């Protein structure tokens, strides 16, 4: 009997949850640009805090953290979720900064035509091929390995330095 009650509540919750989601449906992406600033906390110690880049001072040479959050607001699972983020204009991708839990991360050096792991990327300069540097990357691609259940959320991020 006790188990039955629990199950009923779970069913009710399931029924209740999709209501707002159905209005939107699908996957929702949000991007945030942030910078790290050193601030003094109440104990007078230095603390690194992330603040919205639009509300901070950003000048050439500063690294900026770009975070892309995703959420499946649909009633059905979403699969083959692939997030593509061009490295923003006026910035250089910061080597080894891309993160994404449960995602395969690859990069492009040809404007998003092809993607590969960093060690496989080459660029041609002055008629010679050389391994690609982080500053050659034009796009970052995250391939989420598992289907996203309804209501599932996650985020991917990378850092780039303002040129």
């Amino acid at each position, binding site marked *: 009997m006790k188990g039955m009650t629990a199950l009923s509540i779970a069913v009710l919750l399931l029924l209740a949850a999709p209501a707002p989601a159905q209005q939107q449906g*699908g*996957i*929702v*992406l*949000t*991007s*945030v*640009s942030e910078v790290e600033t050193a601030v003094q906390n109440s104990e007078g110690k230095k603390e690194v805090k992330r603040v*919205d*880049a*639009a*509300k*901070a*001072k*950003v*000048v*050439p*040479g500063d690294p*900026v953290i*770009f975070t*892309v*959050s*995703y959420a499946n607001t*649909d009633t*059905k*699972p*979403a*699969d*083959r*979720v*692939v*997030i*593509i*983020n*061009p490295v*923003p*204009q*006026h*910035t250089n991708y910061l080597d080894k900064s891309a993160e994404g839990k449960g995602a395969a991360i690859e990069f492009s050096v040809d404007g998003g035509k092809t993607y590969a792991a960093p060690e496989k990327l080459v660029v041609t300069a002055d008629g010679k091929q050389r391994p690609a540097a982080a500053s050659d990357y034009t796009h970052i691609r995250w391939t989420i390995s598992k289907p*996203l259940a309804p209501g599932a959320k996650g985020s991917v991020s990378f850092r780039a330095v*303002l*040129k």
Partner: protein
Amino acid sequence: MKRTLTYLAITLALLAPGRAAAVGTPSGTVVTNTATANYQIGGMPQTAVSGSSGFTVDTKVNLTVTRNADATVTPGAANQALVFLVTNLGNAPQRYDLTVVSRLTDSFDMNNVRVYRDDNASGVLDAGDTLYAGPATFGDIAADGALRLLVVADTPSGQPDGAAAVYDLLAATVVSGGTATVVQTTGPNTAGVDVVFTDPAGSAAGDSARDGRHSAFGTYTVSIAVVNLGKAVAVIDQLGGSNAVAGATLRYTLTVTVSGSGTANSVVVRDPFPANTTYAAGTLHLNGTMLTDAADADAGDAGFTLPGEVTVNLGSLTAASPAQTIVFDVWID
């Protein structure tokens, strides 16, 4: 169409070196990040979704003042120049308020100290160079741009060899198109473009890092060459003695040395033959080597450049040069 593409390629190639040296993304540029997601639901590809965020690039104020040349001066010399370069390392056009500061601890002060822009990059003051009067004189200096400057002054007379006058050239960043010093935005971000100082500390007293100013110092060093001339005479009479009688030989020995840190250029020694004597032909020697009496390729002559005088050109001499010895004979009439 093909032609247009070729021109474009050439233009890009020409631009490339400038871009490589670029200091940064211009102030006020909006940087936007956009991510796009593709996915399927129930095996059906869905419309791609995206999310964006961004920020405005703020103004970076950074500059360097570098000294490219000091000056070696002689007392009384006018318009002596120290050479400086002021470079805008920020991401926006700026002007500069220039101040020349005399060090208190140096040994003397120059007179009539001014700042000029070295318009022909000669490193010395020329007729075409522009005198600095205020931040507006040279107008805006673009990001990556630089000002070649001369600190010009006159050397007072009477300064000893080695005396040094030290000057700091201090450049303070001034707003583009104006005359007011740039102020760093303090406190939280504003809606507009903020100003951030990133300049290093300079040589001038009180020029600290991140104050929108930078400085470097240059030194005027007095360098003098003093030419010392010694003269000795020996009398050799016909009997092997040293009596100054008619017919006796007078052997003159002139010794030239230079002291001080400078270089004496175009040193010429002239010595008239004494009255009542006659030059003994073929006796003029410089450092043990005979010089012909005629004015020709060798360094000296007797009675040709100037009648009745020995003339010897010694060229440029410094304290390191060996003593120059000139010897000649005359007979007592």
